[in-house]
């Protein structure tokens, strides 16, 4: 029941908001439900830390036959970060999203995304995972197109078509895997694979299709094209939500199936993950340095940072997977906050073109500091969460003797710093380029709630840096569970 509520909560909101017509009440309800969701996932986290793992069989059908929901430490951690990001972005968008979009169901569809994300994190059945992906995707398609501006429509057509093709890869992979293994429950598949022994190569065609599907969702090289083509088109608050939640679900699923199935053929799959991750890091960061639009720079950095998570997973040591988990969580916070600040700049100036912008620090030093915190956390400067994320990745890489890829990661960090400094100089520091822009007066729009949401997020980034040791320890425990798939299997199948 405790896990089922994670799906029931957003669903209740969806149904209630269909009945209620008053926008103000809908907004209030959205914030209440997001808060309750956060409280609930914290409870799940506490339960998981004492009971190791929560397993629920829907409709009381025993495990390999019915649909299983399962939460281990890794899922619980991801759930908490996602719920936190979701609450703050909802609070932020209650002010930044215009009234018309709110009337037309902005919160409705963002709760659809929450339902999909929660479901994906606790799905114990691979077809069920596909269904939650689709729930999440349909909501995100609509959210991206909501408003119907020309550039939004363009962005959503690209986003829609490429993601649909991604879903088909995933679905075809599930079909082939079912044909080979004869079950859909992830624990059951894992146990049958481990019993099959050397025959693993026969499963690779199906697993390759599934990994391609996840890489499209997770925006890994060479499947990332949809992301920079579309993320700069919707309102900034929507991009912040997408950046925080959507690609990370792809990475979560990749980590999950790597530790359950793929590690049997480590020699093959580690190479795949290293190449995809390494090239994502390099290509993403180089492409970002050529952009002159704030949200495009940040969008390309999503790709480059997904690469870090992939290579940390590829090390496949306890420290490596712990680093991947920590880095994912750090990235969800920092990246979202960078987009939240971009949203404020957009609200103030109506553009995000670096060539036109300037002198925003003068306008509001506090927002400048908030950007500084999130940007330099992304670049990996010491007391912030990004430093510890990168440190853990590099340490795991050097310890497991993957020196070359660790060097690449260090080098990429340097270029990330370059991009962030570029944004800082162009948007916050330099004087506006022309006299005309300098003397233009702008209508002051209220942004109190936006500021509050972003400040809390920045505090969370700093706190994650300060408490990096205890969070890192938790991630290590989670990684230990992931490295011992027998534990997952016995919890799910034997309901121990």
């Amino acid at each position, binding site marked *: 029941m405790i896990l089922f509520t994670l799906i029931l909560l957003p669903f209740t909101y969806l149904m209630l908001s269909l009945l209620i017509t008053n926008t103000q009440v809908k907004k209030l309800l959205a914030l209440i439900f997001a808060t309750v969701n956060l409280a609930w996932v914290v409870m799940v986290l506490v339960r998981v830390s004492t009971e190791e793992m929560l397993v629920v069989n829907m409709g009381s059908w025993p495990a390999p036959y019915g649909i299983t929901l399962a939460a281990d430490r890794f899922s619980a951690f991801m759930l908490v970060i996602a719920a936190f990001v979701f609450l703050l972005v909802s609070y932020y968008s209650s002010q930044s999203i215009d009234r018309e979009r709110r009337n037309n169901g902005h919160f409705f569809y963002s709760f659809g995304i929450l339902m999909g994300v929660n479901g994906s994190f606790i799905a114990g059945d691979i077809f069920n995972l596909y269904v939650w992906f689709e729930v999440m995707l349909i909501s995100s398609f609509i959210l991206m197109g909501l408003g*119907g501006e020309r550039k939004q429509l363009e962005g959503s057509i690209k986003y829609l078509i490429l993601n*649909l093709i991604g879903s088909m890869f995933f*679905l075809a992979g*599930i079909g082939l895997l*079912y044909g080979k293994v004869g079950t859909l429950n992830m624990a059951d598949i894992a146990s049958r694979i481990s019993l099959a022994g050397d025959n693993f190569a026969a499963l690779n065609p199906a697993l390759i299709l599934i990994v391609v599907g996840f890489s499209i969702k997770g925006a890994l090289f060479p499947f990332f094209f949809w992301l920079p083509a579309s993320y700069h088109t919707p309102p900034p608050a929507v991009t912040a939500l997408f950046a925080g939640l959507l690609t990370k679900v792809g990475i979560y699923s990749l980590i999950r199936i790597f530790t359950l199935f793929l590690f049997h053929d480590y020699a093959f799959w580690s190479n795949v993950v290293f190449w995809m991750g390494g090239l994502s890091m390099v290509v993403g960061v180089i492409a970002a340095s050529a952009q002159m639009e704030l949200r495009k720079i940040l969008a390309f950095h999503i790709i480059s940072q997904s690469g870090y998570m992939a290579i940390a997973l590829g090390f496949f040591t306890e420290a490596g997977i712990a680093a991947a988990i920590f880095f994912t969580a750090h990235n969800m916070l920092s990246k979202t906050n960078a987009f939240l600040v971009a949203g404020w700049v957009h609200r103030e100036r109506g553009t995000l073109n670096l060539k036109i912008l300037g002198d925003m620090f003068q306008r509001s030093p506090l927002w400048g500091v908030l950007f500084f915190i999130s940007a330099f956390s992304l670049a990996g400067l010491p007391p912030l969460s990004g430093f510890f994320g990168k440190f853990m990745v590099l340490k795991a890489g050097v310890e497991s003797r993957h020196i070359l890829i660790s060097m690449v990661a260090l080098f990429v960090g340097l270029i990330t710093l370059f991009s962030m400094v570029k944004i800082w100089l162009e948007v916050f520091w330099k004087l506006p380029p022309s006299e005309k822009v300098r003397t233009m007066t702008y209508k002051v729009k209220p942004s109190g709630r936006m500021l509050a949401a972003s400040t809390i997020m920045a505090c969370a980034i700093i706190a994650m840096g300060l408490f990096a040791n205890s969070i890192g320890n938790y991630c290590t425990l989670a990684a230990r569970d992931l490295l011992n798939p027998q534990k997952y299997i016995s919890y799910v199948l034997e309901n121990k």
Partner: protein
Amino acid sequence: MEYLIAIFIGLLYGCGVFLVLRRSLVKVILGIFLLSNATNLIIFLSGGITRGGTPIIEEGAEAADIATISDPIPQALILTAIVIGLGMSAYILALKYRYFDVTGTHDLDQLKNTDQK
């Protein structure tokens, strides 16, 4: 029969990819429909196609004879996938309609206003 369906799936994928690579948005959308149906058929085929009865154990029997029943799970999966596909199709056509309304074109080469100059 299996070979026949396999070849047919290949054909569908081929046509789908060909259509997805066209410039007209309508053709791309039709290509997506073909790809999604080909994928549904893959699930259908991978469950193994046996000409058999319903997977229901007769009253009084201990277990069903596996040779005489067909596997219900792929069919359930396809049903779900078709429903999801239907929703997607409806949305993608609505989006296409709206896009045509706003821009008056369905040439994909016109879709580059948001790209980097």
